[in-house]
Structures are given as structure tokens and as C-alpha cells.
């Protein structure tokens, strides 16, 4: 009885402490959301008071002035397109590296692995000139292709690791039945990869959706959400009511995505960190 009592008290204490931290973490978001419903005059008077008469005017202005729908579409195309392309490319490569017993597969593994030490800024300038000479700048598909090259290494390792843990017998049986390697991959292996592919997709979404610098260099126009917010910020400098509405509008989609995919995001981060 006594231990039960003290355990319950312990629970109350940790819950209170955690709630306190949660409040601190959430306060910035709360302040931003509240101010997104105020006029600029109200914010200048006090940035911590509640709005006198909540207005949606800021949201209207942001959505129209920053052309939010097209930035949102741009972000969706880049992220979605990259994920599809990356899944195809890295599952093929990851499978081959796991199953091919040859010196070359070891060499390639090492080359892919070594890229993890290279910061983006080290290749940034040369990459931009390569992209220019290949005619990839200014196009969403060009950005997708470049992302695929830069973001395929961790997915390849995750998939390679996953394939190695799957017994070979199933594939061998399929091959004895007359499957080619390609058929075997698409009909036998790919369906088994589903869980790791979900992880890879979520990781890619998190890497790419909010990325700023590469899209800025390659697209040079406000075609994704972070870019359009940056332009908007420059244009409406100090109009905090609008900037906070922009924050809410651009954060909402990714929060909804997270709430729907929570399980995959959390297991993906743990898996990605172990390999990364």
C-alpha cells in the first residue's frame, strides 16, 4: 500500500515537471499563433496580449501575397518526387550491395559510406556549376535529381542492412523456379522491403521538406515553402502579424503529416540515427 502510494506521488511529480518543460517548449508556438490573429498595431502595443478582435486578415494576405498554394505544391512535388525516385534507386542499389559477393560491391559501399563525412558546403559551389552546365537550375525536376544523388547513401545502407537480415532461401527458390534476378527483385524482394521503405520515405520527407539552401541555389525563385517564406520575410519585414501567420500556415502541413505518420517518423529517426 505504502509503495503504491509513493509510486503514485512519484508519477504526479514527474508529470508536473514534464508538463512544465512542455509549457516552456510550447510557449513560442503559442505566442506565434496568438499574434497571427492580431493586427500589426495591436502587436506594437503589446506582443503578449490576447487579440482584441481576432482576425483572419493576416492569413488571407499571406496566402495571397506569398502565393502559398503554389509554394505548397512546389514543396509537395519536390518532396514526393524525390521520395519515389530515391526509393527506386536506393532499393535497387541496396539490394545489389547486400547480395552481390564481389570486391566491387565492397568498394562501392566504402565510397557511399565516405560521403557521410562531407558537409554540403564543401561540394556546394562545384555542385551549382555542375547543375548549371547540365541545365538543371530553375527546374523542380533538376532539384529532385540532385537531391536523389545527395540523399541516397543513408537509404542504401538502411535497405542493404534490411536485405541482409532477410534469408536468401526465398529468392533462391524463386530463381530455381525460373525467375530472373530482376523478376525476383520486383516480385519477391520488394514486397518484403515495405517497412524499411516506409522508414526511408519518412526520413527523406523530413530532410527535404524544410531544406532551404539547395533549393535556393538551384531554383532561385520562391517555389518551395521555406523559400517563399524567406522572400515574404524580406518583403514584409517587421510586419510580425503577417510573418506569424506565415509561420502557422507553413508549419501546419508538416504537423498534420507528423500526426498521421507518427509511428513511422519515430521509428525512422531511431533507425536513421543508428546508421547515420
Amino acid at each position, binding site marked *: 500500500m505504502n509503495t503504491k502510494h509513493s509510486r503514485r506521488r512519484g508519477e504526479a511529480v*514527474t508529470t508536473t515537471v514534464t508538463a512544465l518543460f512542455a509549457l516552456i517548449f510550447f510557449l513560442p508556438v503559442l505566442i506565434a499563433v496568438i499574434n497571427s490573429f492580431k493586427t500589426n498595431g495591436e502587436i506594437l502595443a*503589446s506582443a503578449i496580449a490576447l487579440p482584441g478582435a481576432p482576425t483572419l486578415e493576416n492569413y488571407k494576405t499571406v496566402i495571397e501575397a506569398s502565393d502559398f498554394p503554389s509554394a505548397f505544391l512546389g514543396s509537395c512535388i519536390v518532396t514526393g518526387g524525390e521520395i519515389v525516385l530515391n526509393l527506386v534507386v536506393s532499393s535497387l542499389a541496396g539490394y545489389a550491395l547486400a547480395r552481390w559477393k564481389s570486391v566491387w560491391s565492397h568498394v562501392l559501399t566504402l565510397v557511399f559510406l565516405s560521403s557521410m563525412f562531407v558537409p554540403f558546403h564543401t561540394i556546394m*559551389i562545384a555542385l551549382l556549376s*555542375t547543375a548549371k552546365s547540365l541545365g538543371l537550375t530553375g527546374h523542380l525536376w533538376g532539384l529532385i535529381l540532385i537531391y536523389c544523388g545527395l540523399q541516397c547513401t543513408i537509404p542504401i545502407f538502411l535497405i542493404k542492412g534490411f536485405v541482409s537480415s532477410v534469408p536468401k532461401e526465398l529468392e533462391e527458390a524463386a530463381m530455381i523456379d525460373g525467375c530472373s534476378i530482376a523478376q525476383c527483385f520486383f516480385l519477391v524482394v520488394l514486397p518484403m522491403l515495405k517497412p524499411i521503405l516506409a522508414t526511408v520515405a519518412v526520413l527523406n520527407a523530413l530532410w527535404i521538406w524544410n531544406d532551404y539552401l539547395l533549393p535556393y541555389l538551384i531554383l532561385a525563385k520562391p517555389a518551395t515553402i521555406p523559400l517563399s517564406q524567406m522572400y515574404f520575410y524580406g518583403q514584409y519585414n517587421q510586419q510580425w502579424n503577417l510573418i506569424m501567420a506565415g509561420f502557422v500556415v507553413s508549419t501546419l502541413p508538416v504537423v498534420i503529416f507528423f500526426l498521421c505518420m507518427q509511428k513511422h517518423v519515430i521509428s525512422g529517426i531511431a533507425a536513421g540515427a543508428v546508421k547515420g
Partner: protein
Amino acid sequence: MQKVKLRQSAAYLAFLLPATAVFVAFFVFPFFKSIWLSLTDAYGYRQDINFIGLKNYAEALSNKAFRSSLWVTVKYTALVTVSANVVALLLAFLLDGSTRFKKLFRTIFFLPNLMSLIIVGFVWVFLYGGVYRSFADLIGLPEALRVSWLGPDMALISIAATAVWQCAGYYMLIYIAGLQSISDEVIEAARIDGAGTWDIIRHVKLPLLAPVIFMNTLLLITSCFKTFDIPMAMTSGGPAGATTTIALQIYNTGFRANRTGYATAQSVILFLIICAITAALYFFQNRRGEAAE
């Protein structure tokens, strides 16, 4: 048999081709081109480029602005790595213990990580400016005692705090995964031996978490050394270079001043630093591992 093997190898090669092609085009080739450019006097996208040896490196290492950006980055990395680790560990222990509403709290802590760093930067400029001013007015804080959060003295600490707020939830998730992989039997055994919650955290969980702490520290250090978005959005590197990180310095040299060759030399130095840190941490980790055995 030989023929079958050859056909198999050809198929595997074909599987590897697409990934290798994009990887070589957008990573390997630019990487070696960067190293070559760092040894030249390349300017913007001007065509005539001359080999000048290690001059760019010598200039970078003796240049005051670059050395200051190195120092700024080191301070920033130290601040963020230590604080984010402590906060993330603390939150992970709280959520691993007997806390109610775990899922809700976990979501709140992770929420900032879902946001674009650029937009997070804007929000915090507002918090450090307008919101702080309103708050100081409310409690009647005299003008002389007010802190200029993004002023020369505080700016680096302020952007580091923003970064911790943004990234702690991510590392917390990794710590939670680590804590969950500790078997209940070990903890039960310690409890039977009479260990309290605090003893278990200190003498059982923390030592078992050491590899995860090592990995998070490595991830934090390497990502802090590359930090760009937050200072770009919040201060543009100012005031007077107080928050100009190496990445920002490379960007400014390459794209604002157009000194492509010089900027790539700076970026290769960044690469070497990250390699050195990673190698040193692994060396340290291995030595510790051996000492423990």
C-alpha cells in the same frame, strides 16, 4: 555455372547503375572539383582559372574573418552540443519514467523539429524583440537592465538557444529508443538489490546509454559545425560577424564576394575539421571501450 555467375554480376551492376550515376554526378564529381577549385584563383563563373597551389588555404588560415568564423562555430557547437544533450537526456528520462500523457508530451517536445529552421529563426527574432519588449514593459523592467538578445554580446547565445529548442526533441527520440532497448531484467535486478530510481539512472541506465550519448554527441557536433539556416535567418551573421559561422562565411565568400576558389578552400578546411573531429571521437570511444573491458 561460370556463365550464370557472369549474368548475375551484370544484373547486379545494372541495379547499382542508377544510384551510382546520380551519386557520382552530384556528389563525387563536385567533391573532386571542389578540391581542384580550392587550388585555383577561380572567380565567380569566370572561365579562365589558374592553378595557385595552397595560396587560398594560406590566406584562409591567416584571414581574420575566417578565423573569427571558426571560433564562432566552435563556441556555438560547444554551447548547442552540451545543452541539447542535457535537455534531450532529461526529457527522455522524464518520458521514460512514470509520467502520464507521454505521447502528448513527446509530440510537444518534437514539434519544433518539424519546422523549417528559417521560419523558426523568424519566430525567435520576434520573441527576442517585440515579445521580450512587451514582457519587459509589463513587469516594468528599467531600460538599463534590459538585455539586447540579438546584440553583439548575446547574439550567439540567443541563436544557440533557438537551435537547442529546435533540435532537442530529435535527440530526445533517439535517447528514448536507447532507453527502451535496456532490458527490464537488468533494471528489475537492480531494484531487487535495493537501488532507488536515481541509483538506477546513474549506475545502470546512464552507463548502458553511453554508446547512444556518443552517437548523439557526434551527430550534434557535425551538424553544428555545418550550421547555416538559423544564423542566416536570424542575424545574417551579425552584428559585426558575431554569429558568422564557417558555413555562412563560405556562402558569403563564394556567392556574395564571388571568390569561388577561396570559398572552396574554406569549405575543404571545414571538411577536414569534420573528419578530424569524427576520427578523434571514434578513437576516444574505442579507447574507452577497451578500458572498460
